[in-house]
């Protein structure tokens, strides 16, 4: 009766689940203005869950067989919930102006968040798989939400088919591991692999699980779906895809590698080094020729995932905390950039091409300045947060003996600075006779302001933040 005795353990997740159920039912009964009311309910749900985690002692470490809460997982959960609120808040205007304001939109996001929270705490391969599925299935539907657009349907189909194959590969790997160890529990697998080195099938399972997770992270050899899906899905959904799942899958991957597969470090280190180099190369070089804004940032994501993974292979807690730092800064910057992308509308249609940004510095200087800060941060130019993210990552790489990896990283970082700076050049230098007019939404302004301020102010807190993460014992 393990599951019932400590219900406290799952309370934040249960709150999200109940909130989603209430939202479904009330969404069906509300007569008018369904979207706004359900949106309010979802905000409430996320806030309650958030405050529950926050006020019920973050450092509370408790666990059951397949579910573990630590200080670190609690903080990641808080971050995920904050991102979810941010995404819902930003996408409000976009959703309405594109007539996507179905009341199911926030509900699906709630279910995706539920899957993510469970994934963060998962301590069992089977449970990990099921929570990945819950998250992905909600996201597949969100991608397909814009039914009138051919591109959205195409993106959804690609995402669904490739995503299911990736899930199947993860499941296959899990079955391999199970066939050797006879258990799916992380701790038991770790014990087993310490005593019994029946490596062939075990490492086969590890590789399969790792590839599936790399697909979900959109890391390089498994990145093919990323540009198409990010371009095709509605921008608000792209904002979700590019921020929250990355954090969650990364955390789940770190836990996976450091607990059940800890004694196979030599094997997975090599695989991840290949993934890192390929991701950085593909992301930086393929983005150079992109004309579509969303495709460009999709490739940018691939490159960034490469940098994030550098921290995983380093042998220290410090490496992991620099990865987390990178991920946090990257998601916040992406949130800002995508709220900008959603904001850019010209004559009732979305600006999709880079050339559509010509003359932005004159028509909307405030948004242009904020965007410059975000882009410089992404490129890793010193006073902004992105610099510190890359700085700590490279330090961790050098300290754990991956000097060549750090050098490759710096080279690709310089290459990727080119296309971030290209956007700035288009906004400021390229002149055009008729200045573009942009319809804007106040909410997105606020998000743009907040995120760019974070990028600017981070320099004062960099040291404290990294110390805090170092102490966390991830």
């Amino acid at each position: 009766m393990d599951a019932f005795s400590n219900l406290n353990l799952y309370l934040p997740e249960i709150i999200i689940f109940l909130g989603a159920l209430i939202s479904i039912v009330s969404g069906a009964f509300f007569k008018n203005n369904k979207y706004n009311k359900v949106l309010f309910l979802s905000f409430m749900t996320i806030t309650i869950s958030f405050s529950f985690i926050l006020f019920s002692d973050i450092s509370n470490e408790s666990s059951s067989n397949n579910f573990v809460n630590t200080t670190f997982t609690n903080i990641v959960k808080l971050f995920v919930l904050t991102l979810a609120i941010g995404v819902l808040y930003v996408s409000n205007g976009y959703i309405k102006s594109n007539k996507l304001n179905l009341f199911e939109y926030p509900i699906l996001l709630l279910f995706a968040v539920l899957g993510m929270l469970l994934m963060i705490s998962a301590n069992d391969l089977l449970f990990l798989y099921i929570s990945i599925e819950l998250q992905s299935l909600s996201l597949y539907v969100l991608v397909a939400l814009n039914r009138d657009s051919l591109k959205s349907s195409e993106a959804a189909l690609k995402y669904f088919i490739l995503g299911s194959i990736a899930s199947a590969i993860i499941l296959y790997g899990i079955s391999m591991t199970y066939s050797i160890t006879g258990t799916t529990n992380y701790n038991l697998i770790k014990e087993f692999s310490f005593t019994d080195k029946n490596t062939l099938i075990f490492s086969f399972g590890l590789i399969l699980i790792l590839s599936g997770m790399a697909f979900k992270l959109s890391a390089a050899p498994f990145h093919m779906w990323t540009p198409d899906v990010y371009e095709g899905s509605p921008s608000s959904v792209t904002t979700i895809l590019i921020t929250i799942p990355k954090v969650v899958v990364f955390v789940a991957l770190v836990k996976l590698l450091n607990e059940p597969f800890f004694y196979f470090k030599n094997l997975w280190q090599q695989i991840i080094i290949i993934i890192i180099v390929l991701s950085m190369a593909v992301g930086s070089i393929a983005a150079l020729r992109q004309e579509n804004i969303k495709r460009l940032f999709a490739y940018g994501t691939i490159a960034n995932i490469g940098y994030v993974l550098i921290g995983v292979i380093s042998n220290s807690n410090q490496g992991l905390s620099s990865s987390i730092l990178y991920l946090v800064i990257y998601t916040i910057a992406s949130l800002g950039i995508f709220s900008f992308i959603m904001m850019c509308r010209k004559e009732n249609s979305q600006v999709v091409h880079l050339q559509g940004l010509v003359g932005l510095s004159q028509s909307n200087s405030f948004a242009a300045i904020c965007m410059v800060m975000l882009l410089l941060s992404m490129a890793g130019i010193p006073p902004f947060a992105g610099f510190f993210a890359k700085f700590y990552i490279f330090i961790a790489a050098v300290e754990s003996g991956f000097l060549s990896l750090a050098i490759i990283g710096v080279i690709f970082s310089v290459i990727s600075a080119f296309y971030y700076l290209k956007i700035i050049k288009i906004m400021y230098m390229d002149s055009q006779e008729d200045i573009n007019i942009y319809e804007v939404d106040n909410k997105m302004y606020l998000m743009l302001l907040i995120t760019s301020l974070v990028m600017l102010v981070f320099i004062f807190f960099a040291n404290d933040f990294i110390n805090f993460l170092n102490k966390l014992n991830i």
Partner: protein
Amino acid sequence: MILFFFLFSAVTVLSSIAVISSRNPVHSVFFLILAFVNSAGIFVLAGAEFLAMILLIVYVGAVAVLFLFVVMMLNVGVDKIKTQTRKYMLSGFLVAIILLFELIFSFANLDIIIQKPENNLEKNTNTHALGNVLYTDYFLPFQVSGCILLVAMLGAIILTLRKREGVLRQNISEQVSRTKEDSIKIVKIGKKL
């Protein structure tokens, strides 16, 4: 016992061959169902009665029926498929040979794969054993998989149910609540028409 095994497996193999060789796609689906039912029989012989039930319910009850619907609705041209088959003959043959060698290899090294799980459920059936852990050890994953089904249902509704302008739909409550007064208009026809 061994007789039944050969009966089931022979029918499975034969009907699988019939699936890919019959001219009528509807017949293929029926043969597919036959193959499923027979492999369920093999599962029962192996003592995995729960898998047999699941195979019948999921594959025969849902998947095969879905296939049947698709085949009947799409009206696939058989001859076209036949000509396409020849194009892929070579690559298909290659894959088949690779699979064959893999099977031979894995049977040759059988001792590394088969480790029977410890059976401490003497008299209990598989279904009993699953039921014992489903609501205890695996309570949480079980509930979450229910959640996944809910999301799947929600998604299907979102993606297919839509109210379009200009599509005439039946609204039963409106039909029932109509009265004579507001549906029949009596017009007096004058002398000059």
